[in-house]
């Protein structure tokens, strides 16, 4: 980067620091330098600008993480989510969304949403693994933290899981089987919770286990589904 441009960015960052201070102290929301920095980072894909944004807001995002109502459940370090939040904003923000940032509040609000979603993804992953406890999970957790999956990978995985769900739903023969598949596997409810949620539908938890037994047996016999269940 030419020296002049670096100096320009640094000046922007310095002004942005002052504007951010004013915003939090006095509610002054007109932060031209911060917005310029954000737009330069996103619209021009300027990594230096992005690094300055990171430096400017990293303590703020860390504070958000520490105060998130679900943070303690994750068992993760706050820095992990700070990194995910910034990389998520970097990946997910489009020029259209960025053009909609009319003030610093809207830009920070989006960063906050990225922080929130980073924590939620960790909780979702954890709960899915909590439902899926076997020895290989230890390795899976290590793998999961080795690299933050990018958006394309996440989208691919979601499509794959949705296709599997649709294929499996087609194998259900009764409304009760649909209930058990949905409540137990998609929502992760236990049989006692399903009974409470749908009073009068099932006689007892044993009936739910019998339905689950039937579902597993049917899927086991289904050659087409083995690609999903392997």
């Amino acid at each position, binding site marked *: 980067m030419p020296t002049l441009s670096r100096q320009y960015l640094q000046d922007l960052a310095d002004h942005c620091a002052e504007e951010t201070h004013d915003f*939090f102290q006095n*509610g002054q929301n007109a932060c031209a330098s911060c917005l310029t920095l954000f737009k330069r980072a996103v619209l021009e894909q300027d990594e230096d600008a992005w690094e300055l944004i990171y430096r400017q807001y990293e303590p703020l995002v860390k504070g*958000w993480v520490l*105060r*998130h*109502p*679900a943070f303690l459940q994750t068992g993760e370090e706050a820095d992990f989510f700070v990194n995910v939040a910034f990389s998520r904003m970097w990946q997910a923000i489009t020029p259209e969304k960025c053009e*909609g940032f009319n003030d610093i*509040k809207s830009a920070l*609000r*989006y960063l*906050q*949403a*990225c922080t*929130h*979603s*980073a924590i*939620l993804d960790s909780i*979702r992953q954890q709960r*899915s*693994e909590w*439902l*899926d*406890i*076997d020895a290989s999970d230890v390795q899976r957790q290590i793998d999961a933290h080795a690299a933050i999956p990018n958006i394309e990978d*996440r989208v691919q995985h*979601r499509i794959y*899981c949705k296709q*599997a*769900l649709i294929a*499996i739903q087609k194998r259900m023969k009764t*409304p*009760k089987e*649909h*209930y058990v*598949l*949905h*409540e137990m*596997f*998609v*929502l*992760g409810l*236990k*049989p006692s919770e399903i009974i409470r*949620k749908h*009073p*009068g*539908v099932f006689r007892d*938890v*044993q009936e739910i*286990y*019998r339905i*689950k*037994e039937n579902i*597993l047996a049917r*899927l*086991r016999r289904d050659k087409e589904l*083995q690609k999903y*269940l*392997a």
Partner: protein
Amino acid sequence: MLSSDVYRANRDAIMTESTLRAHYSDAELLAWLDGSREYAEHIEECEACRQRALALRLEDNRLHSLLYRAECPPALTLAEYGIGLLSEEERRAIRAHVDNCPLCSQELAWQQQFMHSLLPEEAPAPSLGDQWQAVREGVRVIVAQWVNRLAGGAGTGPGMGMQFAMGPMRGDNQRPMLFDAGELQVTLEFYEDVAHPGRHQLVGLLVGEEDPDLFRVQLWRGKDRVAEATVDELGNFIIDNLPPDQYNLKLIHPKLEIQLNDLEI
């Protein structure tokens, strides 16, 4: 080896037709895997049952990890919904899902709790007072509909046959209550008010409005207005110190009034 192959290998190796009856069924093993002690004595002694249970757990786990929340929007999309960034079409699709998904409802409630007060609040909206009275005649009134209270019944599958509950709406802090008011949505949650033992705190979120801080919140008990609050720029509002009772909530804007009636804490 596929999990189904593991299952078959274990089963075939161990169980002949004559021994089958001596062991527990898959349903009973599944119950044992979930912690039921009813079958524990036999299973813990029986290698055959334990092996089958292990194979079942493998299958069960695979299915769980594949399907868990397969219908839910990505966390970031849900968060974007929570801050009103999505297009009308996307918003409608997410709203339809959230109305039926307790997990996404919970995540939206976390978001509302998380985003509240982390950014500096702007000056409170001016008191409505006389100005409000003057425009009162032109106000559109919407009675919001509680959309995520479901009543299941035999013979209906998930997503089918959902009915709206009748009678008072009980806040039980189990999951957020979602209300539909045309273009706008309101989420309510009730918590124990730790500062006032025996009393409750109402935490709300207004979504779908560009300037939610133009709204004020009023809580009514019968003909008495018992509390007022402002809505912040993110759509959050909180009312503390509420005794158990039945209330009506109003979200008031100079041109619009949203009523949430028969809320029972």
